[in-house]
């Protein structure tokens, strides 16, 4: 590196953001990541001393729902900080440059920051017909993707498309759309599944990665433990009704009006790992179960090909955790008291831990 690279703090100040706003951002980031008492100082120190980490955001076969979710994060400073400070060096949905000028930015970033940038991928590559189902700038997306991944420090797989394949990979998968880890094999990949992922989960992950320059602790499926370690069902506000055997039988029936459990309407909350029932959607306003519709499990692998979205879990075999839904019922019947105890803990602030720790960098 010829000249010292500028830090996030340099960029933030150059853009006219005050020190006060910067400190606020650090506190919020630390809080959203569950970093504890010294978290804000840790975040601030990292942003003041570490070189800014460029982020490249690429779109493959997708619907842009991940970007849509991201730009509506309830993070109060998202418009200033996440979009412009953390600097998406390349994002074809919101950027100013066009056409081959945009392609040039890609190549420039790749060379200048070799091994130092984060590649965020929305969507996935289709492999049939040599990638012809997704042509970007005259070339198959799969080529551009593997090329940009080769020089990345790490890769973020946004959403169900990049993580698992999503609905375009549903039978008969006409384009042979595959998750990105089928074509990127030699880089650390963090999967942030969901269709789309929750905005605050996205800003939390990107905030962590660019602040500390590494991925947070991941589970065996490659998901950040801080957001995907609990099932929707574990923290669902309707859980007491499940435990009490009170169910919705038809849309908007009396049970629905009483807020009863949606299990019989096909809710996949018991087998879905995501933060919907705690973080919720649209700035904490609600989430699908709160709107009276069951969870379809959109953050789980192959959610699109597990039978009807409205089948009860009884009809689905090969789900882990509880062996089948009959047992769910039996376990539930025996654990009403335990369920209430768990429920009492819902209001406690979620502990978002990273054992390798921001403190150990």
């Amino acid at each position, binding site marked *: 590196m010829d000249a010292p690279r500028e830090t996030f703090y340099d960029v933030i100040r150059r853009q006219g953001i005050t020190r006060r706003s910067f400190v606020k951002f650090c506190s919020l980031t630390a809080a959203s990541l569950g970093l504890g008492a010294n978290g804000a100082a840790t975040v601030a120190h990292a942003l003041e001393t570490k070189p800014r980490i460029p982020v490249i955001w690429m779109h493959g076969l997708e619907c842009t729902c991940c970007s*849509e979710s991201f730009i509506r994060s*309830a993070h109060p400073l998202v418009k200033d900080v996440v979009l412009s400070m953390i600097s998406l060096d390349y994002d074809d949905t919101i950027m100013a440059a066009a*056409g081959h000028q945009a392609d040039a930015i890609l190549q420039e970033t790749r060379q200048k920051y070799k091994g130092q940038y984060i590649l965020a991928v929305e969507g996935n590559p289709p492999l049939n017909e040599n990638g012809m*189902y997704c042509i970007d700038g005259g070339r198959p997306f799969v080529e551009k993707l593997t090329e940009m991944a080769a020089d990345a420090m790490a890769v973020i797989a946004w959403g169900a498309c990049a993580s698992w394949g999503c609905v375009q990979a549903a039978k008969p998968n006409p384009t042979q759309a595959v998750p990105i880890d089928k074509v990127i094999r030699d880089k650390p990949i963090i999967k942030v599944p969901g269709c789309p992922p929750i905005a605050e989960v996205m800003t939390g992950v990107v905030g962590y990665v660019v602040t500390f320059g590494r991925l947070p602790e991941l589970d065996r499926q490659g998901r950040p433990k801080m957001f995907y370690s609990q099932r929707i069902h574990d923290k669902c506000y309707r859980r007491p009704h499940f435990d009490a055997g009170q169910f919705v039988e038809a849309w*908007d029936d009396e049970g629905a009006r009483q807020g009863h459990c949606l299990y019989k309407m096909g809710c996949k909350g018991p087998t879905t790992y995501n933060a919907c029932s705690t973080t919720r959607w649209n*700035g904490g306003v609600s989430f699908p*179960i709160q709107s009276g519709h069951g969870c379809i499990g959109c953050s789980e692998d192959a959610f699109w090909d597990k039978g009807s979205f409205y089948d009860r879990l009884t009809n689905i075999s090969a789900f882990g955790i509880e062996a089948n839904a009959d047992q769910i019922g039996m376990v539930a019947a025996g654990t009403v008291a335990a369920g209430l105890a768990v429920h009492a803990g819902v209001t406690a602030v979620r502990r978002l831990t990273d054992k390798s720790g921001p403190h150990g960098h």
Partner: protein
Amino acid sequence: MTRLVVGPFNRVEGDLEVTLDVADGVVAAARVSAPMFRGFERILVGRPPGDALAIVPRICGICSVSQSMAAVAALRAVAGVVPPPNGALAADLSHAAENIADHLTHFYLFFMPDFCRDEYASEPWFDDVAARFKAIEGSAAGELLPARAQLLHVLGIIAGKWPHSLAFRSGGTTRGLDLGETMRLIAAVAQLRGFLERVLFAAPLEEVAALSDRAALDAFAEAPRTRNGDFALFLRLARDLRLDRLGRGTTGLMSYGAYRGAGEALFRGGLYDPTTGGTGEIAPERIAEDVTSTWLADGPVHPAEADTHPAVHKPEAYGWAKAPRLDGRPVEVGALARQVVDGAPLARALVADGGSNVAARVVARLFEVARVALAMETWARGLEIGRPFCIPDLPSPDGAAAGLVEAARGSLGHWVTIRNGETARYQIIAPTTWNFSPRDARGVPGPLEQALVGTPVGERGARAAAIQHVVRSFDPCMVCTAH
């Protein structure tokens, strides 16, 4: 004659490439290509019909409610279901929130930043426009994004999550709203009015909705009271650059009619003929899709009979979008078409002199925002607490029907056939499929391909801003286009 390739386009939804033949600094011919295909029309076949309600929203992350509404309309028509008034109103409120959000996103984040390019640096309005709209740096985005997020709380309240909401059913919306939620809904709509009246229009919505001719628009652009709004800023810029002469479209303008929840459609449907100035009925059975220029195999052309089979080795094809035609002709769809067909005097005035154009498309979009925001207030107050929002699901009977709705970008149709309780056929024609259609068997170009002809590119070639203005004036959604 030189051939230019413009693309990949940024600040549009999805991937787009445009090939231009340029002679003497002016576009002589254009070919528009949708280079992305996923195959939803094949994926839906063989599944339970109701599962379409969870799959079709995922065609598009910015118009997911529109896709839901088209599927709901089609399934509703097959089953003969009539939702209770609350469910219909809640669905219209949701759809309106998404459509307004899309219109605002287009204006603030996608369309206006192109006027901040260096080639406009000497224009009298440049400093004002650049300070407001420059991509990522301009001050407007900082006001828009929070207001837009607030507006989309309407979706949060009614549907739990957006995009890809699940609450929309044939029988209505899944959950009755209580008094508190209805009050929050009314508050969200009031906040929308606040943003629009303070930032976008600098005028009451009623005043914008009452604009009726070019003279009124000119006065609005200059009046001390309204000139500080972003709308007036655009009107002055459009007048200076003569955007009404750019991107001329001479095809018919079509709308299926929009927002039928309260009974009568808020905007009535039909086909407007710019040569006669008259409006006629649409005969849906006269809609066909031509695949001459598409990487798809030939077959039946009516969407109720068509299938989708990729055929990638077709030398004459240049994209994944089909070419929809009404009575064998291309038509333009979108907010301008909707307002013209509905008979809004301002919209009629904007196309009276030579058809649709860049300025008219943008003005109509913002004009429509004012009209729909006013309607949302009425609908929100029309919800009756304690009354049903949804009737129970019944097994889908076999049959076939079309669901024809208006998305933000124009006419959206889903054609479904149900046999033995499964989806046997599913075809989709999206708004940008109409607007950005390729050439058909007779060699007739689609509406954008026609509108680009005559665009001056000068020495800047593929980098000319005029091309961007014409393309973006249609607010393309490419992921919907070829789905």
